[in-house]
């Protein structure tokens, strides 16, 4: 059992490959998290325009991309668009898919945060002469972000985990590299190693989230 799943010799052999994968996973995360956050922020800010002409299409947009499994979106971009002569490459496809999918999730979280800020806050800010946008940026957003910080972090955890989908379009991130190493060595140790790396990387965030959630529950009592 240990020979199979925790083989030291194979581990030594696969380690550089896995490390390279980890680097790419981190780089990918550093790209897609800000991208998703930007998309989500745009959606949330748009949703503060009370007009039904904005609100309904926005909700449809968000629900559309929340209903669409991200892998399906990715495959559509990666394997579908080339038929229309649009060959984007794995990296661009991942970027677009994450922008659309995780943007919708971040958007929902941020919208809930903005809606949780008391309307009196905007009124107070406007009464001191701030414009609508200034009030939004300087008064509402800081409070909104603080209110939904656990949800933002939780979503970010999901986004980082989701970067493993990039292996399907042959981006050499952690999972892809591990599978390469596995098929070279005919041994599952590299995949176990990749899982261990994911766990060590994300466990602190999971612990932190669990703390924050428990504190939120305690304050509701």
């Amino acid at each position, binding site marked *: *059992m240990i020979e*199979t*799943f925790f083989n030291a010799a194979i581990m030594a052999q696969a380690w550089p490959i896995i490390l390279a994968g980890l680097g790419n996973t981190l780089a990918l995360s550093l790209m897609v998290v800000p991208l998703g956050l930007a998309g989500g922020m745009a959606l949330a800010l748009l949703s503060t325009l009370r007009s039904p002409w904005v609100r309904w299409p926005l909700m449809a947009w968000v*629900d*559309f991309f*929340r*209903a*669409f*499994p*991200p*892998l*399906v979106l990715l*495959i*559509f971009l990666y*394997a*579908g*668009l080339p*038929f*229309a002569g649009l060959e984007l490459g794995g990296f661009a496809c991942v970027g677009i898919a994450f922008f659309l999918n995780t943007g919708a999730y971040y958007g929902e979280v941020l919208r809930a945060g903005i809606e949780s800020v008391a309307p009196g806050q905007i009124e107070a800010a406007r009464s001191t002469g701030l414009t609508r946008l200034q009030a939004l940026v300087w008064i509402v957003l800081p409070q909104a972000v603080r209110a939904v910080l656990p949800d933002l972090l939780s979503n970010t*955890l*999901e986004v980082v*985990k*989701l*970067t*493993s*989908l990039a*292996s*399907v379009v042959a981006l050499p991130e952690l*999972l892809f590299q591990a*599978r390469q190493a*596995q098929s070279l060595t005919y*041994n*599952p140790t590299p*995949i*176990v190693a*990749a*899982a261990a790396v*994911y*766990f060590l*990387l*994300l*466990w602190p*965030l*999971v*612990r932190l*989230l*669990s703390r924050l*959630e*428990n504190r939120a*529950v*305690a304050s*509701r*009592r």
Partner: protein
Amino acid sequence: MGGWERFTETFLNAKVMARYWPDIVSGLGTTIELAALIVVSGLAAGLALAVLRSFGIRVVNWGIIFVVDLFRALPPLVIIVLIYFGLPSIDVVPSGFVSTWLSLALVLMAFSEEIFWAGITAIPRGQWEAARSTGLGFTQTLAHVILPQALRITIPPLTNRTIAITKGTALGSVVAVTEILGQASSAVSNSYNPSPLTLGAAAYLVLFIPVVVFGRWVERKFR
């Protein structure tokens, strides 16, 4: 041929769709079956762990917390790959379907345990004390007084999390499960036309948009 015709010819090709829609429908059936199994077993296991945790046996609880943390931290696709490609090395050969089911059920178990547990601890201590003061035992109090209240407050977060995890059934296509995406992908490579992917995408929307809208409604109703 105009641009629009080119587009429909490529992505909405009637001939290709007519040829492959039965495959997509069969994939839809597999997706629903897989999703139902994941939801039922994942939620049941999560609730069982949360109830077990409420007995407050320290060593057991450490174990539960570790397992929950583990399956919250690992990407579902990594778990699927690990089970599907890893277990055969010790002569356990799970099918892609079983690998996907098991993986996503474990993930849902972890997330739902956390949510159920938060619900149980959110019930004020006075509820326990009142029930115990009338002679109800620990398990009776849990079953009749605490859980009914806890489950109610867990419904919105549970619904959203369940939907998000169930969408992961598409990951099954990576390990040869013939669910919607798997069917659509092989149809694309057989027909050299992406229309089956369009059909597959539509099938996902038909399946999940009502679920997402339902999730929104639940959130309104129970807040």
